[in-house]
């Protein structure tokens, strides 16, 4: 029944998810500034807010609010204005299925990971709209690059997820976490382990590479490559419209890390903690795992140079997709034929 309770439930969950998304995105923005600068022997933000420059993301947001909102003359104004809506809405919609504890999940859809892949690929549309509508050469090139890159890496991402689905036997994210919590027997010893340690290491590597590419982060940031395309599809955006793309990007980073944590690292679950304790500590465990993965993504950024456009396509089509396909077959073989 759709009753008042249903709406109250939905509204509370929307508010919680918004707070989680914006809060963690702000932390990720600050972490990026600080982690990057320490990796490069700089101090990084120092003044805003007093200690450690903790208020830097807020200061940035305040600065962007005061900037003039420009729409370039030749631009397709409607499409130009609509693009950030699609990017942010699609990213926020991924938070529907991410389980923060056994009970703290907006909706545990049966389609789970399939829904995630579908919704997160909507951002491609927003990016392409932004690139096309700006009527700017940099934006157009950036948008096309982004489209080519996002579709190429969509496939290894999906196939890495398929490998997990085969092992778990379900697409629901809560189901996948429970499959990891279920004990397995190795040589008479009954133990439960996350999928990363029970045969999904190849899928995890593929998933992380593909998700860094999906997020257009270094070493896969050709769509926004500052030194060649200024900012790619973001070139003409200013003021809070730009900030919304920015927020969407970091929120996507959080949601990708959350998905990776749930699929491969056990999500809200860790070994040796009772089911009831998970109800309370689940969110913190998941956030710890997300932070670990976000740190890893920042670390990659500080380490590798940018790939060339053809190397990027080559890597997806020649290496990642065949490996991901074979990986699915190997895991299915072990699941169906051996065990």
């Amino acid at each position, binding site marked *: 029944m759709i009753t008042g309770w249903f709406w109250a439930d939905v509204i509370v969950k929307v508010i919680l998810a918004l707070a989680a998304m914006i809060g963690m995105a702000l932390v990720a923005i600050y972490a990026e500034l600080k982690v990057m600068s320490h990796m490069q022997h700089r101090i990084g933000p120092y003044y805003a807010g007093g200690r450690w420059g903790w208020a830097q993301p807020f200061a940035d947001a305040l600065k962007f609010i005061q900037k003039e909102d420009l729409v370039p003359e*030749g631009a397709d104004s409607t499409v130009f204005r609509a693009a950030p809506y699609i990017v942010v809405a699609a990213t*926020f919609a991924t938070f529907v299925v991410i389980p923060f504890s056994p009970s703290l999940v907006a909706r545990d859809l049966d389609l789970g990971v399939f829904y995630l892949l579908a919704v997160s690929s909507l951002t491609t549309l927003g990016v392409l709209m932004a690139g096309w509508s700006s009527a700017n050469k*940099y934006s157009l090139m950036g948008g096309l690059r982004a489209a080519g890159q996002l579709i190429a890496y969509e*496939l290894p991402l999906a196939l890495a997820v398929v490998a997990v689905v085969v092992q778990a036997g379900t697409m629901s994210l809560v189901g996948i976490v429970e499959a990891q919590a279920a004990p397995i027997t190795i040589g008479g010893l009954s133990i439960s382990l996350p999928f990363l340690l029970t045969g999904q290491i190849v899928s995890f590597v593929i998933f992380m590479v593909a998700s860094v590419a999906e997020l257009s982060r270094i070493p896969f940031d050709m769509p926004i490559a500052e030194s060649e395309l200024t900012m790619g599809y973001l070139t003409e955006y200013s003021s809070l419209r730009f*900030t919304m793309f920015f927020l969407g990007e970091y929120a996507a980073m959080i949601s990708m890390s959350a998905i990776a944590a749930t699929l491969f690292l056990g999500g809200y679950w860790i070994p040796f903690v009772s089911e009831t304790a998970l109800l309370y500590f689940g969110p913190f465990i998941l956030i710890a795992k997300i932070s670990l993965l976000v740190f890893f993504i920042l670390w990659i950024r500080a380490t590798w140079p940018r790939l060339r456009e053809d190397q990027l396509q080559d890597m997806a089509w*020649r290496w990642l997709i065949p490996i991901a396909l074979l990986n*699915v077959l190997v895991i299915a073989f072990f*699941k*169906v034929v051996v065990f």
Partner: protein
Amino acid sequence: MRNQYFGDYMTVAVFLLSGALLVAAAIITARIVAPRRPSRLKATPYESGIEPIGGGWNQSHIRYYVFALLFLIFDVEAVFIFPWAVSTDYFKSIGNGALVFFEMAAFVLILLLGLIYAIRKGVLRWE
């Protein structure tokens, strides 16, 4: 059952809507707070500081259309492979595991042949 299904996707719709509302709220705030002094110069497309040459929608070489075609094939494959992945448990329980596995293996290998063909044709070579 139907109500739960409806409720699930209603939630998705509410999430999509509130994501859009967040953007709307931000942009309306900016509209109120930010200054607005439009000028012709500000509205010209950015080309690293020089006057823009030609239009923004110049013809440009699109190398990606082949990838788009390849993507279509593999994405359809992904759609086929998901139901299979979920139902392996069931087929195993009725003793048909190996058969189902080899069927999917044949499907995947045929697709891999297609990919190898595309690579040998030089889709990935950029001159």
